[in-house]
């Protein structure tokens, strides 16, 4: 498993190709999160995190996924710092012999990364800056698992 927390951008395609290798792999699932500019007004998105706890929390979530599904490997990349609309924020990839495990584990990882990994987003537009509120739906999504 690999957990990468970095300010630098990443090439999701190259990461996915590198991750997809391996004997017995039958299914690879990936998700890439991108900075969304909902109203066309976003100047920058800043992502703050808690160095140390971030890596630890993500590793714990990945361990849970590896224990729960028959995964051959999992990859999580999450950025922090100042990002622009269209920039990749994060990526999750899973691989397994059969697709059901890879799909379910990737979905689980995304739900937990949203609400249990210590990142906070702040959006700046021409009107000023505001912290993005956590959504009840994101917290509720954890109950699925």
């Amino acid at each position, binding site marked *: 498993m690999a957990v990468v927390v970095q300010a630098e951008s990443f090439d999701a395609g190259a990461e996915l190709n590198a991750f997809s290798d391996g004997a017995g792999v039958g299914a690879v699932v990936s998700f890439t*999160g991108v900075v969304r500019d909902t109203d066309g007004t976003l100047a920058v998105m800043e992502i*703050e995190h*808690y160095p*140390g*706890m971030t890596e*630890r*929390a993500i590793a714990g979530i990945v361990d849970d996924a590896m224990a729960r599904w028959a995964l051959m490997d999992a990859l999580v990349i*999450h950025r922090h710092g100042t990002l622009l609309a269209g920039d990749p*924020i*994060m990526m999750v990839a899973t691989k397994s012999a059969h697709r059901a495990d890879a799909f379910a584990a990737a979905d689980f990882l*995304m739900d937990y*990364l*949203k*609400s*249990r*990994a*210590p*990142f*906070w*987003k*702040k959006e700046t537009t021409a009107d000023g800056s505001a*912290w*993005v*509120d*956590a959504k009840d739906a994101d*917290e509720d999504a954890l109950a699925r698992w």
Partner: protein
Amino acid sequence: MNVMYFAWVRERIGVPSEEVTTGAVTVADLVAELSAREERYAAAFADVTALRVAVDQELTTFDAPLAGAHEVAFFPPMTGG
């Protein structure tokens, strides 16, 4: 112990972290102690249901004990992904 603040909690309190000498038994005791100290803490901790807390980098609850803790962090609900 080292007390850390993130996101709007950090902005409201005005520092990212500080050393605090305390006899607080639980996280809630520490919150009460800080809130009594200065208005900026009272403002940040006015509604703890809007906050989350980690002790030694593990998410926990406000009734968690602080015995042996080195690092306590306060922050709003996380918005990763």
